[in-house]
């Protein structure tokens, strides 16, 4: 299935209550702690990606 970066994931049938579990995986993968509600605040791949990138950048020590 093609996923459009700008279409909310809920439109692909991802249940808003049960999507939360993914946050723990994201934490593992990227090493940043993510508020579980982040996916609700940024419901598209594009929006979520940007928000995540910001978190990752913030958590990097400034060199």
């Amino acid at each position, binding site marked *: 299935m093609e996923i459009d970066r700008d279409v909310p994931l809920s439109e692909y049938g991802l249940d808003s209550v049960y999507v939360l579990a993914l946050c723990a995986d994201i934490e593992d993968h990227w090493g940043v702690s993510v508020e579980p509600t982040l996916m*609700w605040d940024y419901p598209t791949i594009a929006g979520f990606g940007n928000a995540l990138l910001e978190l990752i950048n913030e958590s990097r020590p400034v060199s």
Partner: protein
Amino acid sequence: MGTDRGLDDRLADLERRFGDPHDRENPIGYTAILAADERAEMLRAGEQTLDEYGLGAEFVPAEHGGRLTRLEHLVDVMRSVYRRDPCLGLGYGSSSLIGAVNVWASGDLEQCRMVADVLLRNRMLACAYHELAHGNDIARNEFEARSTGSGLSLSGKKEVIANVERAAALVIFARTDAKAGGRSHSQILVDRASLSPDSVRYLPRFRSAGMRGVHLGGIEFQDCTVPTDSVVGFAGQGLETALTSFQITRTVLPAMTVGILDTGLRTTIAHVTGRKLYGGTAIDFPYVRSILVGAFLDLLISDCVGTVIARAAHLIPAQLSVYASAAKYLIPKIVIDAMDRLSEVLGSEFYLREGDSAIFQKLLRDVRPAGFGHASGAACQLTILPQLPALARKSWAMEDPVSPALFALDHELPSLRFDRLKISNLGRDQLGASLGFGLDGESDFDAPDREVGQLRALFATEFQDLGNKVAQLSPAEVTPDASSDTYDLASRYAILLAASCCIGVWRHNQNRSDEIISSRSWLIAALGRLADRLKTSAVTVPTQADDYLFAEMMDRFEGRRTFDLAARRVFG
């Protein structure tokens, strides 16, 4: 401990006001309670008594002028009410509490004051979430609150709502954004008297099999304008507020229903001690005894789980998401199963609506909504399930030990902070992980005991096995379409958590040597009972445990003390 003495006084006061349940002239005795149930009415005298006692204050945090400081105390008080009449418990008490927690979690000061005022004046709050078309699936609720610039316009229907026609204020779960997703709903708090009568219609009452006295109504709004500041929290915060604040009610409501089992067990013992059969007394039959002792154990296990998870709300609130769901899934199941088994012992008595045991048939009907109301067991399993892979991976093998205060009943607790609740555990589970602690070398175990050690090892192995199984689950397998085998993993997890609660309580209350929970007989029997639920045949409970527990149970029955951890004096 000042607050505890306060609690003892309150409980004694409440019990005194309730009086002897067996006194036929007592307006709050079983005769009057059953008569009100036959008429499908709330017990007026009971409501008046609770008004005089000021039950509403138990639901209001101390900072807003009420008596709510510790969840265990709230449970204790409400358990007394459920022991007497579950309709009073739900219809006068819990249904207001369910609405109030939304406001304590996300409301502004003004809204908190308004709700506190309602409850402190012994008025009611109705919590209107349910729409017949959507059930547990609240994220798809349609009731709409549309912004009109000058206010919010409410339209839609809410159905099967306790006290909707007599509450002073309503908390309504409404859609504030047409989009799907987690930021499309909000709670709306309204003063019922301020609603324009032309735009609100009440639906006919829903009649029910149990909880018959509770007024279950419906309400339909059509373009009803309310002020914009009726939104609790920010617009779109509703699902988050529901998923956090309801962790509190999903913890305490099941723990309260333990009171129903208390009266159920008491009623059954009373019957079988007087019942002559085959030249003996029914209570002397081993089969009858084992069912009674089993129910007593189930009650203690339920109380251990409810107590520890209520303490977790204070101590590790960010981990409450899965614990509250486990409590809401498991405790009603244990309590309802135990009531069903007791009904077999009562024989035809349980089916009669009159006679000395008549209260039992009412309790058996009243206990049922504990299983499906306020999130069904399956919905709770589905809150747990998607979180299990991360818990297993990130927590179970490597978690920091949890503070003994979680289990040690005399320990003080930090105050309750609604703002610390999170919609997901984010891979942390100190209560579950504690099941594995101390197994290598038993280093942190003070009193190694072969039998206890074996049982603990059995549960730890089960836990490891569960960890291996959930690690293999893909995200696609933990959605509402999950197979029943997958759902089963969530129920196994809940049973393992229960074992962790029982072990913790036993181990950290050894100073209470006069009490049953510090005895190894209780722990061995409780773990055996939980192993039965796991369908692990490796454990058989030794019969001397049965004798010990039977003696304790009868002692409490005769001494008119409750069957839970607290063993409090009651009116019987």
